[in-house]
């Protein structure tokens, strides 16, 4: 392991993390709900149609972020190098996996670890491990 000091952005990472923590705390304290993005999105697909209003509003907030950010500041880089095939496979795996595990980086990673949930700790270790292994295979074994 070598640390890529040129790519490392500790201050914006920490500040962005604080904002994410505040957003999650806001949703639990104001609405009484967990800010798990896969869970919020998944709930929009459920039947019967229950509490859809706040879910839709949360997703709209996520979508509106770049446009509102763009009014005040240049948008940060969003570089997508994956091929269309990879993006399709990634989307399907992320969609199925997060619903099967009942959470993702936000629900288990941020909210779950903040609640000191052993279940979320196990989930976070597992998806991080899956991510590390996949990138290792793609970049270092296949050299893509």
């Amino acid at each position, binding site marked *: 392991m*070598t640390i*890529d000091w040129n*790519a*490392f952005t500790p201050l914006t990472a*920490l500040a*962005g*993390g604080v*904002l*994410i*923590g505040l*957003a*999650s705390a806001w949703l*639990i*304290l*104001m*609405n*009484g709900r967990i*800010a798990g993005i896969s869970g919020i999105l*998944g709930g929009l*697909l459920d039947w019967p149609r229950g509490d859809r*209003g*706040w879910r839709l*509003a949360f997703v*709209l*907030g*996520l*979508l*509106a*972020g*770049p*446009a509102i*950010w763009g009014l005040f500041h240049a948008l*940060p880089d969003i*570089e*997508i*190098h*994956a091929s269309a095939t990879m993006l399709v496979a*990634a*989307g399907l*795996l*992320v*969609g199925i*996996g997060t*619903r099967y*595990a009942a959470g993702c980086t936000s629900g288990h990673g*941020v909210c779950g*670890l*903040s609640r000191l949930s052993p*279940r979320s700790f*196990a*989930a976070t270790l*597992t998806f991080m491990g*899956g*991510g590390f*292994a*996949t*990138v*290792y295979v793609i*970049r*270092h074994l296949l050299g893509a």
Partner: protein
Amino acid sequence: MNKFSISAFIAGLLFSFGLLLSGMANPEKVLGFLDIFGAWDPSLALVMGGAIAVGLPLFALAKKRSSSILGAPIQLPGKREIDRRLILGSLIFGIGWGLAGFCPGPGIVATGALKPGAILFTLCMIFGMWVFHWRERRNT
């Protein structure tokens, strides 16, 4: 729009800003973190650290309250078991995350930035979720 929707919109917007500011809406940066055997960018660890540092005291506060500030019940997950679904699902998610560098939040935010690759990812993610829900309904 009722007060719950306005509040949820603000939470979503803050979350979106957090992902943009931290660089996590950028899949290349996320892949830089997941590449621990290459040139490793530890930034994502600090994003998680910052979020949890704020989350710990505020979630502890939420646990103590019987209802939310807007008057809704506080709904915290009651499930405790570390079961096959949790581990297998997380593994499937992790593999998908490593393929493109997108997890659900950044995928939606980059869709909001109108990046074609992100739109494709997000539509497939929603389809994957829909397939899972459809199977669950059929099996129960």
